[in-house]
Structure formats: C-alpha cells, structure tokens
C-alpha cells in the first residue's frame, strides 16, 4: 500500500461575497510518488483546490493533512516548504530581475546561506536545462522558459510535492511540452509527487490518476483508463478526450478489428502493428 501524503476531508470553501461554494464537500487522498491530474472546465473549482493545498486560502470546514501534519495557520509555513507551486501566468510569478535572482528568491526567504544558494541555484537551473540563461531578464524569455525557471525555483527548495496550477495553459505547444517533459524528468529523479491542475486531456492521459471536478464537487476519481471510458460525459462537462481514444473508436467504426480505449498513440500503434502482422 502506498503512503498517503496528502488527504482532504470534507472540504467546503466559499469565496467572500459569493453565493455558491467553490468547493463543496470534497474529500480525496494523494499518494506519495504519483502524478495526479485534477481536471475540470474553467470555474469547476480545481484552482481553488490548489490554493487550499498550499494554505493560500483556508477552508471553512474540513481538514487538509500534509505528511501527517494538519494544515493550519501555524503549520502553513512548514507545509509550504514541502509543496512547491507553479502558477498559470509565467510573468506574474517571476519575482527576480534576472533568472538566477528569481531562482534564489525562495532560498533567500528561508535563510539559506549564500554559498549554498549559489550551488543550489546552479543545480536547479541545470535540472531544467536553463543554465545558460543565468543573467537573462524575464522579458527576454519565452513563456515556456519562464515556467521552467519557476520550476527551478521550486526544485531549489527541495520540496516533496509540486503543484502545477494550469501551469501550461498560457503556453504554446512547444512551451507546454518543454515544461511537462521537465517535470516528468524531475519526478523520476527526485521521487516527487506531482499534482497537475489542467484542462489538457492529453496531459491527463499520462497521469497515474485523474480526479474530475465539476461545480465544486469531486465528480469522478480513477485511472485515466477508467475516466476516459465516460467519454460523452466528459464532453458534456466541457472537457475532451485524447486523440488516441477518438481514433481507436473511429477505427472500430470502420471495421478495423482492434480494441478500444488506447490512452497513448504508442499503444495504438502497437495494436495496429500486431494486427498488421496477422493480416
């Protein structure tokens, strides 16, 4: 049994002056070392979740436990040291005037000595393959590069968990791929737990687990294979299904004798290969 790293119990949250609950009685667990995708259309409450996990907002009722510690006003700074966050807008989280200053910002905050900082900044930047950009200013970087710097800033602090709060939604396809690739590599290397809040279903298909949010409630929880079985429902929720699933369905309709529900193109290619060799 994998270790529970984070658990949410009966979370209810309402923004000030709003009638409806942004989150209404949400409970789930996050396990160590997994990639959890939280999907939902804009306004489904998924970004509020991210803010609660990091203690940027506090729920009206319910508890959040991170690494056996209940998240409260007192424990919030400890919890934040374990959870790194990458936000949506690449510009509005870049604090430093240059790349290295920005990566160092979090380290300065927790009082890391200068010599250690220099080393950690270098390390973090090489992990995200941005070492050459040490003195670059943010307005000369692409969105994807800025997000990688944000990731470096998180990595430098050596957290257990990374939350990507729609971190790729403002990027072009290349930037998106760069960022996801970087996080995947880091996850492998550092045994990180990744929580990705997204409406990119291709990305969610590669997660270990998916949580679908709708109208502030947990709509469904399961492996990508389970989740994408309810294709019509997902589209009604304002979401989409991955290309490979659409294609395998269209192939079936055309009488190609293959299974249905391929999560990745590779799986589909493999099945087609097998079929082809039998023909």
């Amino acid at each position, binding site marked *: 049994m994998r270790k529970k790293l984070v658990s949410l119990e009966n979370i209810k949250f309402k923004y000030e002056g709003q009638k409806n609950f942004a989150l209404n009685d949400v409970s789930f667990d996050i396990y160590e070392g997994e990639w959890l995708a939280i999907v939902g259309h804009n306004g489904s409450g998924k970004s509020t979740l991210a803010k609660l996990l990091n203690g*940027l907002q506090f729920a009206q009722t319910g508890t959040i436990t991170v690494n056996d510690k209940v998240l409260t006003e007192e424990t919030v700074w400890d919890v934040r040291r374990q959870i790194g966050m990458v936000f949506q807008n690449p510009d509005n989280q870049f604090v430093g005037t240059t790349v290295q*200053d920005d990566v160092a910002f979090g380290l300065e905050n927790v009082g890391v000595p200068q010599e250690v900082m220099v080393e950690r900044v270098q390390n973090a930047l090489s992990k995200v393959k941005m070492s050459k950009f040490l003195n670059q200013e943010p307005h000369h970087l692409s969105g994807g590069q800025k997000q990688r710097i944000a990731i470096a800033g998180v990595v430098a602090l050596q957290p257990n968990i990374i939350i990507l709060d729609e971190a790729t939604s403002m990027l072009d396809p290349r930037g998106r791929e760069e960022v996801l690739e970087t996080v995947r590599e880091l996850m492998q290397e550092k045994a990180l737990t990744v929580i990705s809040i997204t409406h990119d279903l291709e990305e969610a298909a590669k997660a270990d687990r998916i949580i679908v949010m709708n109208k502030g409630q947990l709509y469904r929880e399961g492996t990508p294979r389970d989740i994408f079985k309810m294709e019509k429902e997902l589209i009604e929720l304002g979401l989409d299904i991955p290309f490979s699933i659409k294609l395998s369905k269209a192939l079936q309709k055309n009488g190609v004798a293959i299974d249905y529900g391929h999560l990745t193109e590779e799986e589909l290619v493999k099945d087609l290969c097998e079929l082809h060799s039998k023909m």
Partner: protein
Amino acid sequence: MLDKMIFGRYVPANSVMHRMDPRAKLLLVFFFVCIVFLANNLVTYSLLGLVTLGIILLSKIKIRFLISGLKPVLLLIIFTFLVHILFTKEGKVLYQLGWLEIYEGGLRQGVFISLRFTFLILVTSLLTLTTTPISITDGMEELLNPLKKWKVPVHELALMMSIALRFIPTLMEETDKIMKAQIARGVDFSSGPIKNRIKAIVPLLVPLFVSAFKRAEELATAMEARGYQGGEGRTKYRQLHWGMIDSLCMVGLVILTGVLVLLRS
C-alpha cells in the same frame, strides 16, 4: 522618441565602468554632481570636460549613441542658454539689436551653465547605462543599511524597487498592447483636439490599472507560496565586491576635488 531615450537605460558591455561596484559608482556620481558646482572658470570647466570625456571612453558606450540620446534634453539646454544670454546683464555689451543686448557675462554664464547641465546629464546617464538597475538597487540598499537602526524599512524599499524594475518592461509591453488594441478599435491617441486626446487615455488607463492590480495580486500570492515573510531571517543571494579600481576611482575623485578648488577663481 521613447526608443531614443537613454535616460535610465542599461546597455550591456564589458568595460571597467560596467565591472565597478555599484556602491562606488553611486558615491562617485553623487560627489561628482556636487563638485561640478565648484567650477567657475575656463580652466576648471575644461578640466571637468576632460574628466567627463575620460569617463565616457572608459564606459565603452558609443559617443554617437550618447549624443542622439541627449536630443530630448537638448531643448532644455538651449532654453537655459538663451535665458542666461538674454537676462544676465554683466560686463561688456557684445552685440546689440534694438532692445536685444547680449553681454559678455551673459554669454559666459550661458555657456557655463549649459556645460554644467550637459556634464551632469552625461555622468548620471553613464551610471544607468553601465549599471543594471538591480545593481543600483543593491548598491543603494547597502549604502542605506545603517538607516535600519532608525527603523527605515530599507529592505522593503529595495524589494519594492527591484519588483518595480522587474515589471517595467512587462508593463511597457502591456501598455503598447492595449494601446494597439484600442487604436484598432478606432481610438486616435496622436491627433485631434486636446480634449479628445485626454478622453482617449481612459480606455488605456483603465485596462492598465486592472491588469496591474491583477498582476500585483498574483505576484503577492506567488511570493507567499514561495515562502516570503518579510526581511527577517532572510539571506541575500547577490553580493557586492569592492575592488581596487573602486578605491582608485574614489582617490581620483578626491584629487580632482582638490585640483578644482585650487584652480577655481
């Protein structure tokens, strides 16, 4: 026009000036601004001119670029020159045309004041041209550090300044973007009666403020998420290095001051 402005701009290069400690540069510029007022005759002004020229050469900034950058303030210099020529009535009359009289003292004052003005602008521009704004901030923070004893929030001020510097290009870009979007919707920012032009600012300012507030809010959230809790217990990543050249320049400035005092009339 804005493209040509050099005031407050940084031009990357690898010169002695670029490598100097920002604290030294700030102190030097500050004292230079003071001693410029010591000059009061041809010899002292020429000396200052030579020193300024020397600094320009040391900075490796192209003189042509500096001059084109001075254009926006040229009008101001010409204006001061004319004011002095027309209103200082000292010494011999050099030229007379109707009511217009130009005195020797007026001409001298005009030339000197304009020169003084030019020196000041050149030297302060060179400071910003060869020092990144963040280094200037660091230098200031270090120089002002003693004030912390009197509860002056030096760290907060420096952080505010560095964030402002960080966001200037972002907000400039944003201004340009919103301006273009509104021009595309038929706004005319550059012609028509003044009243209309003032009205045209509203569709620019409102979105700019809305976006600046949104950015500020998101940035504050991001800073909090990254563990920012104020200056206490914080370490500093950037370190300043005071080198030989910085000390030498300080000594040079003291000598220059002495010479100016000796040579002034």
